[in-house]
């Protein structure tokens, strides 16, 4: 992994040059290049796999769903940003995020603040 990069790369691999901001769940997703038959290159975001769920419940704390709650309201309540609902959805394997809060009384695991969801493998350049 310890390699010397050519000088030209120094201004290529720029932190923050990723199309998704730090708050996005696609920030660490890989960008792929698809080549059309006529040779033009199309960039696309590769499929994002869910980070592995933690075996122990250390990294989450439990929230009991009440009537009328939605994932974005939980995001606002626990992270201060409604756009962060995907962190709760990541920690609870459901197919549709709305399933999280469908039934009142359901227990939902909310990641703790300061928890790095991408784990040790999410190393980005820069």
């Amino acid at each position: 992994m310890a390699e010397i990069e050519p000088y030209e790369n120094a201004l290529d691999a720029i932190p923050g040059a990723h199309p998704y901001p730090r708050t996005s769940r696609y920030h660490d997703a890989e960008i792929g290049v698809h080549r059309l038959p006529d040779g033009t290159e199309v960039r696309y975001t590769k499929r994002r796999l869910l980070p592995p769920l933690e075996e122990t419940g250390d990294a989450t704390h439990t929230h009991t769903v009440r009537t009328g709650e939605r994932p974005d309201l939980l995001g606002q309540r626990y992270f201060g940003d409604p756009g962060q609902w995907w962190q709760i959805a990541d920690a609870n394997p459901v197919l549709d995020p709305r399933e999280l809060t469908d039934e009142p009384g359901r227990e939902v695991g909310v990641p703790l603040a300061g928890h790095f969801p991408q784990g040790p493998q999410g190393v980005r350049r820069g």
Partner: protein
Amino acid sequence: MAELPVGRGPVHITLHMGPKLAKPVPAEVAEALLSAQITATAGERSGFQLAFDLTKNGLISRTLLPEGFFDPKTRLIVTVTVRGTPEVLFDGLVVRQEVGASNQPGHSTLTVTGEDLSLLMDLEERTDRYPNLPPSQRVLAILRRYSDYGIRPDVYTEKVSQPPHQDLRVHYQTSTDLQYINELARANGYTFYLEPGPNPGQSSARWGPEVRLGIRQHALNVNMDANSTVDQLTFAYDGTAREEPQARWQDPGTRQSTLLPQPPISPLRPPLGKRPTPALKRRTLSGTAKHQREQAEAELLARAAVSADVVSGSGSLDVNRHGYILQPRQLVGVRGSGRTYDGDYFVKSVTHILRPGSFQQNFTLSREGLEARSAYVRP
């Protein structure tokens, strides 16, 4: 659902401490934190200062402090979560601690001061020879010794390639590793710094040109009524800061000395301002005549590039109002300060000041000319 409490403040701070392998601190230590101040500068060492409340019979004064929890060379990692997005602000070592015992209850404090992991490279002087290695490979060879602290080398080849000749000259290191790396960076117009993250316990050691291209961070707004994010912003324009270095080089075969041509600095520093500043001073570099020609050229380029920054700005912002953490050593746009000083800047240094209920940042900006190059900045 308006009666729901809105979080416990959108900023959370997490501390990891321990010898070499840092672990999350006990809850009592995190609760006792009074303030944290972290400084990160391009091309210099970062530092931190944390103040803890030292209660008489608390866990810190009873067990942790005498057991050496805050001893020098303890590793300390500070992570800050803004709006659910964690960011490693600092990864370093404790250097010094101060205990201020007070007669008034609740006023005793423990202040811990430290520096970032490049302190490790500055501890012992080393004499080493690097036969037939160009500067970037010498840096890589040095950085490999520190991989057990999670330091990942991020080294780039030099702009002016300097092929080594073992039969002519063998490069020697006589100072500490950090001094030698910095010396090599200066001779090539590069900077060396440790960037903590992306995960706690990791950091990347960048030896390369400053990041002066790419997507800008979210713009700093000043003097824009409710949209301003910056409390105050001061700019200074120093006309004498830029100098035009001159270097002579002597051909060992013919003994002819030639004046090296002025290199364009834009590959190393892409221009950020529209109106470049003319160099008022002219200086002659000493000692370049005896170097290899490539080395003399690199030094000329480095000196011309480093002195190019004449416009500097400084100010402070509130992270809660700005919404993002301003990162040092990257580009940022400024708007609202008038036509002359608007535009893109390089963030030279940032001081994070964290207290319960507030997260302030003091920053300094720099660039090489007046007026914005483009009519827009990234909002």
